[in-house]
């Protein structure tokens, strides 16, 4: 395996996180911002699964392979990522619900135009 491939998945996870943050900070539309937040979260999936990967490994599901015959990838990170995905979807739903109420009460989606709380 090339030296680049040894770190590339991690670097991509970091890149995705920072890209999401950039989008979040510069967003002009709150729905877009919520989308960017879910991009940030994608980076955690990539990182976790990359950490648990094993070259030449297979999924630890024994319905069609015999235990002990093949190297296995780490099942724990997969379980963590599953949890993470559900968390992400629920947070997105809740934040979108809040965005809908913001539009109703403030009449705008642009964070630059929300001027109720400051100072």
């Amino acid at each position: 395996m090339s030296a680049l491939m040894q770190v590339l998945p991690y670097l991509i996870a970091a890149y995705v996180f920072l890209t999401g943050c950039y989008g979040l900070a510069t967003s002009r539309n709150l729905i877009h911002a919520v989308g960017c937040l879910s991009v940030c979260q994608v980076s955690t999936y990539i990182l976790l699964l990359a950490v648990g990967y094993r070259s030449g490994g297979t999924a630890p599901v024994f319905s069609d392979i015999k235990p002990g015959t093949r190297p296995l990838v780490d099942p724990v990170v997969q379980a963590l990522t599953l949890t993470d995905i559900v968390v992400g979807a629920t947070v997105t739903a809740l934040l979108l619900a809040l965005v809908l109420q913001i539009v109703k009460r403030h009449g705008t989606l642009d964070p630059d135009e929300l001027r109720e709380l400051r100072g």
Partner: protein
Amino acid sequence: MSDALILVALLLVAATATAAVAQRDPARQALVLSVLGVFLAVLFTVLQAPDVGLSQLAVGAALTPLLIMLSVRKIRRRRRDRDGAR
């Protein structure tokens, strides 16, 4: 072989994630996020995580974009009602 697949999937994910951030229109962003969900599902499958791939497909490619689309629709309808009333 599998390394090459992983590499391709990773690059696709990175590119789509960038596109999802760069696409400032929420409705289109929802579509890009949906594509991102599919690529992630592919990546997870080649990383030997079919469980995660499946749920990413269900949640990331379908549910989340659907919620975003519904929110966009609500807001558009609201604007239309407002404009119509004026």
